């Protein structure tokens, strides 16, 4: 897995609604909210630039009306952006013809929807096999592949059920299975768990992480739930009024919020769950402390995961990096200070 290889790149993407949007934007590429307002336009997506790396879970987080759904639809060109470039593995999607777009969507993209978008007249198997049916794959072959994926999402035995016979969680499993049926490289999930009960939502998040560990897709995940974002994301983009306020790892956002708006979100987040040992460790002393270290903790571990180990230790722990080299030290008091912040 090459970490830094960009799968999808958005370069100053705009989506404006209203008459004469394109002309207005051509005149002034740096339109502010007030510029838009006086031109009678609605800026759903404003000058968004970001990169989604190969194999990463990229979460776009924002409250309703922040433009996150419009942005993800611009990325898949379900909505035509007003300006900008969308590079999918280096080729600009906005220059692709309708037929090319159909090919790309058929084989390389998958999408999961907030309200599942299952076809009511098809069974679970029929729904999962639907993208393959559209491609004209023969019935036996597509059902065989659909069965494999149904099993992958844990719905075996329900192949012949109709969507209305399933619970919300099960329906979304069908939605997920369907989006995976074509083995996409790029996987869009548009608030996939927002319509589910909190308990089911949690279960589905675990399921999602399990699948991702197995499949290693490049993922764009939309949510309005900051806790969900932190739980799932490798990196998060926070959107407000159509623009991206900050892009960073959960830890970045908590430690270095770029705007007051981001700070507002991160204020109530449990720091121990987000911060890694590396973020709070002290530099290693020249000589190991008297009596040696109480033990070792990896630098990448989350505080909440190691808090128990440090409990009761009166000496500092050595912090080691991936190669086992000591890069810092951590005391019980440092951890308690973080835990006390909530």
């Amino acid at each position, binding site marked *: 897995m090459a970490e830094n290889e960009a799968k999808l790149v958005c370069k100053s993407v705009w989506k404006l609604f209203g008459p004469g949007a394109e002309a207005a934007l051509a005149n002034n590429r740096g339109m502010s909210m007030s510029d838009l307002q006086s031109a009678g336009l609605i800026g759903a997506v404003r000058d968004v630039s970001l990169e989604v790396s190969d194999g990463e879970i990229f979460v776009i987080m924002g409250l309703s009306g922040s433009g996150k759904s419009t942005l993800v*639809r611009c990325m*898949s060109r*379900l909505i035509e952006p007003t300006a900008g470039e969308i590079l999918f593995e280096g080729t600009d999607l906005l220059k692709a013809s309708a037929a090319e*777009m*159909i*090919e*790309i*969507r*058929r*084989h390389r*993209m*998958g*999408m999961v*929807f*907030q*309200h*599942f*978008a299952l*076809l*009511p*007249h*098809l*069974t679970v198997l029929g729904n999962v096999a*639907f*993208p393959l*049916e*559209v*491609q004209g794959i023969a019935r036996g072959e597509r059902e065989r592949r659909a069965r494999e994926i149904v099993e992958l999402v844990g719905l075996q035995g*329900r192949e*012949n*059920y*109709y969507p*209305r*016979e399933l619970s919300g969680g099960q329906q979304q499993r069908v939605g997920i299975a*369907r*989006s995976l049926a*074509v083995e996409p490289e790029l996987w*869009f999930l548009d608030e996939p768990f927002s319509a589910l009960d909190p308990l089911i939502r949690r279960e589905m998040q675990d399921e999602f992480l399990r699948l991702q560990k197995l499949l290693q897709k490049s993922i764009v995940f939309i949510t309005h739930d900051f806790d969900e974002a932190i739980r799932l994301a490798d990196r998060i983009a926070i959107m407000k009024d159509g623009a991206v306020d900050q892009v960073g790892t959960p830890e970045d956002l908590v430690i270095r919020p770029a705007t007051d708006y981001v700070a507002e979100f991160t204020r109530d987040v449990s720091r121990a769950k987000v911060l890694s040992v590396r973020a709070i460790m002290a530099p290693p002393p020249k000589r190991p402390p008297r009596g040696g270290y109480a033990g070792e903790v990896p630098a990448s571990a989350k505080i909440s995961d190691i808090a128990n180990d440090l409990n009761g230790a009166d000496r500092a722990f050595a912090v080691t990096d991936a190669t086992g080299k000591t890069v810092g030290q951590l005391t019980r008091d440092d951890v308690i200070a973080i835990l006390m912040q909530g």
Partner: protein
Amino acid sequence: MTDIPTSTDPSLKEEPVPRRFFQRPLVMIWCAALAAAVTFATFAEPYAPWAFKYPRAWRLELYFDGKFIELKNWISKVVDWLISDASFGLFTFTELTRGVSWIMERPYILAKSLLSTGFLEGQGSAAIQILPPLSWIAVIVIIVAMARFARDRKLAALVGACFLYLALFNQWSSAMVTLSSIVIAVPFGVAGGLLIGIAAHRSRIVKMIVSPVLDLMQTVPVFAYLVPILVLFGFGPVSAIIATIIYAMPPMVRITMLALKQVPGEIIDLGNMVGCTRRQMTWRVMVPSAMSSLMIGVNQVIMLSLNMVIIASMIGAGGLGYDVLASLRRLDIGAGIEAGVGIVVLAIALDRLSQAFASREPSEHREERPSALWRRFPYTAVCLAVVLATGILGLFWGWAQAWPAAWSITTGDFWSELVKYININFFDELETFKNALLLNVLIPFKRFLIAIPWPVAMALLGLAGYSLGGWRLGVLCALLCLFVASVGLWSKAMVTVYLCGISVMFACLIGIPVGIAAAERERVWRVVRVVIDTLQTLPSFVYLMPVVMLFRVGDFTAMIAVVAYALAPAVRYTAHGIRQVDPQLLEAGVVSGCTPGQLLRKIKLKLALPEIMLGINQTIMLALSMLVITALVGTRELGQEVYIALTKADIGRGLVAGFCVAFIAIIADRLITAGAQRARARLGLQ
């Protein structure tokens, strides 16, 4: 410069004084306009006689073959030209229409052979039956199996009983002729409606063309286009089927457009994301997702086709419709009612059956498909077996093939006697009632309407349009009004407005209170719903017969029939409007200490107002369509004009009068819809 605050300073702005009712600009304009109208109507006749009788010289004339002629003659001339001279090079226009009717005739002959005549060889009376038609037992078994498949045993029993009725009362053979034309008209209507609806959904241009055409198709009375169809397609069952399709298709188009629009955006996104082509998007994603709404359209097409049964028999459809029409002409009430009830029974059976199919959920999942064909399709298997068995049995025993006449019963005499009894014993009471209403309500209202000069009506309608929906609506109303005057049908149109108005008034006086009562009590609602469901299933002619028998011909009879026919929507929309008021608002009312009466007046009726207005709108539309039929009982209005044109086969005259009826309907519809929309916007129900 001093620091005197300017008028833009917000602190100095005057508080807007709430204006009194009479000081609002629109109210003042209206008062002035009405005063001017009354003055004009009273005093202007000597000075402006043209306003009271539209001058012949001002009539709308169009150019044809070297000179200007009146619109109705122009239409007739154009159609004549189409028939005799128009040609597309390879074939003439007439050959085209005859070709279409030949194509339509093939499936009809097949259906009729199957259900009614059997498969014949040879022509006319020399024909020999090669294969018998389906036996009555087979038809009943098939229809019962469909009902059982679509819903449950209760429905199967109802549908079976309906068809048994047809056999028992000796209506079987007519009913099968009717059924075979329905069986052909409905698929054409549904498929045509679906395709046009899809095209209109896809393309803005198609939609712009289709919408006004639909408006016209739904408001021009059927009689008006019977003549052109007759001329173009000839007399016979095929023409009747074509007329039926034209009449029954518009709701399917509208429902298709609406259903496709209502497909959730996510489903469409899904279709795009899996890479559907346009065709796949339409047929694999949108149409299946909209299926349950589309089935409502199918139900509508079936019901409207049945509604046309009697009218279609005027241009050559046989069957139950012809029986009713013939007995109506003979004034044989017993036979007429029996055949009429036959149509009703057929309508109820097909209505419930198609509704069951519409609301049918996809079947529960099945674990494994059984391998044997007959086990996988048990209903089809049973039906096929019965068809074969009765076919073979029928060769030996006649009763298995055709319902034996000896088993039939008739109630014809009973109905005739009943009407005779009422007419003899209650003649005076009925007559007094009729005359009192005629003299005190109907005739004064008629005189009042006829006295309105056409420019005044035009101006007032334009003003109404302007104040409800802006200047576009105002201009539209005024222009449509001018059209009616300019084809020389103003006074007849006013009689139509009078009959329609008075009927709608009575329908509302009865319907709205019933609707309120039904909304307040669940038990009343259950009874009322069955009644109005049945009322809406009845073909319009059925209303006419008993009323004519009791009150003979004339305006009053027409009014009663129209009220009966148009009552249902007034009840339904009122009840629906009140029942859908947000329960939280009612709780808020109760908590604030409203009495039940206050709750009704101050909350429920206020909020249900837009819905009630739409109900009145529907009532007007139904009333207008019924009015044309009541022309048969001798009213002197546009309907009569259409009917006369029908009997004289005068295409232009019928169409022009038909357009006038349509325009009246469109004016009423647009004004009320605009009013309802305003009321809705004011209440924040958008």
